[in-house]
């Protein structure tokens, strides 16, 4: 599948899906006016990729410094989609990056670990 890339804006994260390397990344802030429209496209790409093969070792980096409530729900769906696909793939590793002092994003990552046990979720502190 061709490389899917959306540059970051102030309200939307950079989306960098290098499908041929099995490496997907989302990075930046997310509070668009219409989160459904933005993530609709992203999810479409993700679903097409996940159904295009199997047995792959996939690495996903999510480094969202801030996301609003509407985006939260869609980020959760994104992770859920990965979790569902995990049994079909070799492995899916999700690196969940957050600012070291950000207790809320740390907790969000910990909750993802509890909710999605088919994924290898790695919590990683970073400095923005």
């Amino acid at each position, binding site marked *: 599948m061709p490389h899917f890339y959306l540059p970051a804006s102030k309200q939307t994260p950079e989306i960098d899906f290098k499908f041929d390397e099995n490496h997907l990344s989302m990075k930046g802030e997310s*509070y668009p006016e219409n989160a459904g429209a933005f993530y609709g496209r992203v999810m479409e790409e993700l679903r097409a990729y996940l159904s295009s093969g199997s047995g792959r070792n996939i690495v996903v980096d999510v480094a969202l410094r801030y996301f609003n409530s509407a985006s939260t729900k869609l980020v959760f769906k994104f992770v859920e989609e990965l979790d569902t696909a995990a049994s079909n793939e070799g492995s899916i590793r999700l690196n969940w990056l957050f600012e070291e002092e950000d207790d809320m994003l740390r907790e969000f990552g910990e909750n993802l670990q509890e909710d999605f046990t088919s994924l290898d979720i790695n919590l990683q502190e970073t400095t923005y």
Partner: protein
Amino acid sequence: MNAPMNDFHAMAKGHNVFFYYRGYVSQTMVEACAEALKLRLESAHINYPTQRRLLSSFIEMGQNVVHYSADSLTAADASENEVRFGVLTICREGEEGQFTLTCTNPVSQKIKDKLQGKLEVLATLSVDEIKSLYRKALRAEGEEDSKGGGIGLLTLARDSSNPIEFSFVESPDNPEHQMFTLSVTV
């Protein structure tokens, strides 16, 4: 400067007003204000978790106005570039104190009834109960009339260090509207 403006500024200072906007709100405006607030909080060395909660709550409130205020300059069925009326306020209790964020906007009677039920429940819950509801809501399908996945109020309640406060009063401008005010503390 004229006398009313002087009074207004003195009153704002007396009430520790950190930010105040009354008028029509758009996504672009929310973004620009959030950016300026972020720089101001950083330069004042406010601790990161507080910065984070303040900006998150400000954006959530601003977007609530843009999505749900009953007074709109744009078409009722628009989903982009909406412009709606509201008041956004941030006050700080003294130089080192907590921040209180408040938003006010008109809503219809029908929305009032819906919000009131939800908020009355939220205002009585403990932090753990709010977090548990929040996790449940993440898994639930979005509500039909919600543009935010139905977790906006839960997000505000989760980030607030005091129980959220709210009120509805008759709108002075429109008998069919109620002025809805919501307040959180970070």
